[in-house]
């Protein structure tokens, strides 16, 4: 049976207003709400699609964070078979290398054919979790994948390049793939199914061990985008904004 591992991370939800902590170098965690990283969500969907198509065991691994259990049970409701939570991950973000090392240990035990994760996450500086993981596991890596089909000991991955060029590449398994989007948009899973999973599915806790948080990058200042002088904000309701816009375009001789 094909073994697929998916790494799923929670990231700050941008629907909520972000606040900068008093330190001025980080987000204020008190106001943060976390949501699954969109790309990881696609990675999960891709894994489930592969499972439905040709059978597979899907394991989801997630670093501990507020709401991670709900997220894991949701993946179980979609069809994931095994849920693993990495415990002992502090509030400070570990480096990707250190996280990859911890994950690699667990993944080696599973001995998967395919490791999927989102190609990026919006709270990630370096975006190199998947390549680091590939390196540690001694597997090939391809990123920005938007579709996979499994063959015997190999996979065909689809990757879209700018300008609408679609590349189809064959990869020897096992491999690590960074997912840009799944073949189908992530499915909706009914709340009652998730709730049922909360009663029946179980999450295995794994200790993350010692994680390195110093990436060598020092944050001087974190701030919300400031309104630059050059930008003129048009205020008012739709009508007013529209008429101001027309006036400006007329001034510029564009209308």
């Amino acid at each position, binding site marked *: 049976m094909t073994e697929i591992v998916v790494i799923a991370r929670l990231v700050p939800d941008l*629907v909520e207003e972000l606040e900068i902590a008093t330190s001025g170098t980080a987000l204020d965690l008190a106001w943060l709400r976390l949501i699954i990283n969109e790309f990881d969500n696609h990675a999960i969907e891709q894994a489930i699609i592969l499972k439905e198509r040709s059978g597979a065991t899907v394991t989801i691994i997630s670093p501990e964070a507020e709401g991670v259990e709900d997220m894991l049970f949701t993946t179980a409701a979609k069809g994931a078979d095994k849920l693993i939570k990495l415990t002992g991950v502090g509030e400070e973000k570990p480096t990707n290398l250190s996280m990859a090392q911890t994950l690699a240990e667990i993944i080696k035990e599973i001995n998967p054919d395919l490791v999927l994760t989102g190609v990026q996450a919006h709270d990630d500086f370096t975006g190199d979790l998947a390549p680091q993981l590939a390196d540690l596991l001694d597997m090939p890596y391809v990123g920005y994948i938007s579709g996979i089909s499994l063959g015997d000991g190999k996979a065909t991955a689809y990757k879209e390049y700018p300008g609408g060029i679609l590349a189809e590449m064959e990869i020897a398994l096992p491999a690590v793939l960074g997912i840009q989007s799944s073949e189908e948009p992530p499915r*909706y899973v009914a709340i009652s199914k*998730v709730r049922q999973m909360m009663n029946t599915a179980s999450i295995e806790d794994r200790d993350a061990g010692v994680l390195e948080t110093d990436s060598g990058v020092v944050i001087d200042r974190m701030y919300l985008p400031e309104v630059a002088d050059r930008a003129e904000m048009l205020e008012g309701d739709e009508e007013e904004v529209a008429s101001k816009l027309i006036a400006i375009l007329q001034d510029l001789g564009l209308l």
Partner: protein
Amino acid sequence: MPEHNEYWGIPLDWGSPNILVYSVMFLAGAILIFRFYLRARLWWKIGRPEPRWNKLHLRFYNLIKYSIVQTRILRQKYPGIMHVALAWSFFIFFLGTALATINTHFYHFLTGLVFSLYKLTLDVFTVVFIVGALLAIYRRYITKPDRLTYQPQFTWSLILLIIIVLGGITTESLRLAVEQPANAAWSPAGYLIARAFLSTGASAAALTNWHLGIWLVHLLTVAFTIVTLPVGSLLHILTGPLNIFFSELDRPIGQLPPTPTDREGHPVYVSKLNELTWKQILNGDACTECGRCQDVCPAFGAGLPLNPKDLILGIREIFEDAKLSSNGNSFDKSLLENQKLNKEALWSCTTCAACLTECPVLVEHIDTIVELRRHLVIEGMIDPELQDALTNLGRYGNSFGQSPRKRAKWTQEIDPPVKDATREPVEYLWFVGDYASYNPALAEMTAKTAAVFNHAGLDFGVMHKGENHAGNDVRRVGEEGLFEMLVEKNLSALQRCQYQSIITTDPHTYNTLLNEYPFSEPQTILHYSELLAQLIKDGKLRFTNPLNYKVTYHDPCYLGRYNGIYDAPRYVIKATGCELVEMPRNRDLALCCGAGGGRIWMEEGKIQERPSESRIREAMELDGIQHFIVSCPKDITMYQDAVKTTGHESDLTVKDLIELVEEALEDSTY
């Protein structure tokens, strides 16, 4: 003295005609019962159990009201009169025959004046029947409304009925012609025909022979009709009243049943015939194919792939298929594979309840539609827009995908500040709803509502981020788990508040709070139109600036049909000094705006004319209407769009009730 003469003109050497008549009728009756039993037992055999045997007094009351008096059928003039003319006359004929039997065998009372009155009644109803039959013929073969089913079985039924009645009156008039009894004038129609027979100059013996022939035909036609009843379009004579008798009594229409469970307690998400309840299968068999539901369905009218009549008949079709191949394992036939019940049809329903309100045999369309939708939701068969809305509702408690913390952002501008009901006691807790809270186009309306409340000196507050979408349409979409979650969240927020009444802006919210929320204590829940009417009556809102607008009013489905609130908004409109002109489809006939049942979150699909556009056109037919008044925030957006797309922007403005009130209060007062 005239008296009932049994078996006049039937040769006595036949032995007692009683034996003939009773054996024919007994046989026909037995065949009828047996055939009907074969069909009916399968409802219970295939369908899931569902208890519908309680409140028998109400069930009998409904039976009389809907099957005998036929109040529902009479909602529509032409088909109503047509049907009761046919049905009531047959009730009378049936009763007449029964009385004659009693008279013959048990108690001899059909003599003298009683007998003459008896004759008169039968005669009059014969004429009534003929009028009904002519109306039916004209309708079925001349005007041919789209909503009817044009199949030979309907023609056959009509022919049989006509033969029976004509046979009856002809035998009667032949008897009159020969006997010429003293009370012949009490059967005016029969006597008229008798005179015609006499004018042919035929001998009494000839007339008596004719009588015998026609009497036999009459008898055999009755028997034939009875025998074929379970397979023809007259089946509804049996199934209709049964469906009415077993109609839902335990819940108001605004309350959907929870997801059913099987014996082991697992939820049942209906997608197969044998997952329907026996009552849902009976719905299919009871449908008279009258097409009333089709006529009023906004989805059908808009050209969407839903026809409530077909949907119900689809169930019958699947049931009949299963019945034919009834080797026992064909009962799990898929419902969704049937074209009439496929997912496009199911997703088109706005749950407006127009079909329920119109159906003469009380078919419960919406329960079945929502149960099938639950299956689609569990299987993830939902369109991307709906998926986004549900995901947002699950995560943020609103369909807009906005932060819960922004729910009360509109209050920032309000002075005096709107109280936070989760922090301090208020008299009125205002459940604002998603649209009024988040839709920027409605912010002004919501602010005006607050201003009017302040003007009336109300002590009110909102729940800020404690409020979640109330879930009415989440439930109707079929996402029962999400509905339950929203209910839990709202109930826990409400439990933290101290208040006397809940006011709602959105009729959908109003419906679910009122009918579906399992409050531990009784609640007073008001729609703002009710509150406004009350404030006006109490003198707390006095209008100093009477408006002289000519307006019309649109009844929201969840306020009107669902909860019977028709008068409060009308009272408010009139109190502001407006002249209210009704659209032809008003009160429980009101056309749905098209947004309900979660339709507002879905892809629109291929639509010919939006219900909201049809509604605006309807309003434009009225003479000199300036404003189209609504009392539901969703209606504002729906109808403002429709006014634009129909090109009536300069002739008609859509206004909320609250805008009229605010204007009539005169701006200087606050």
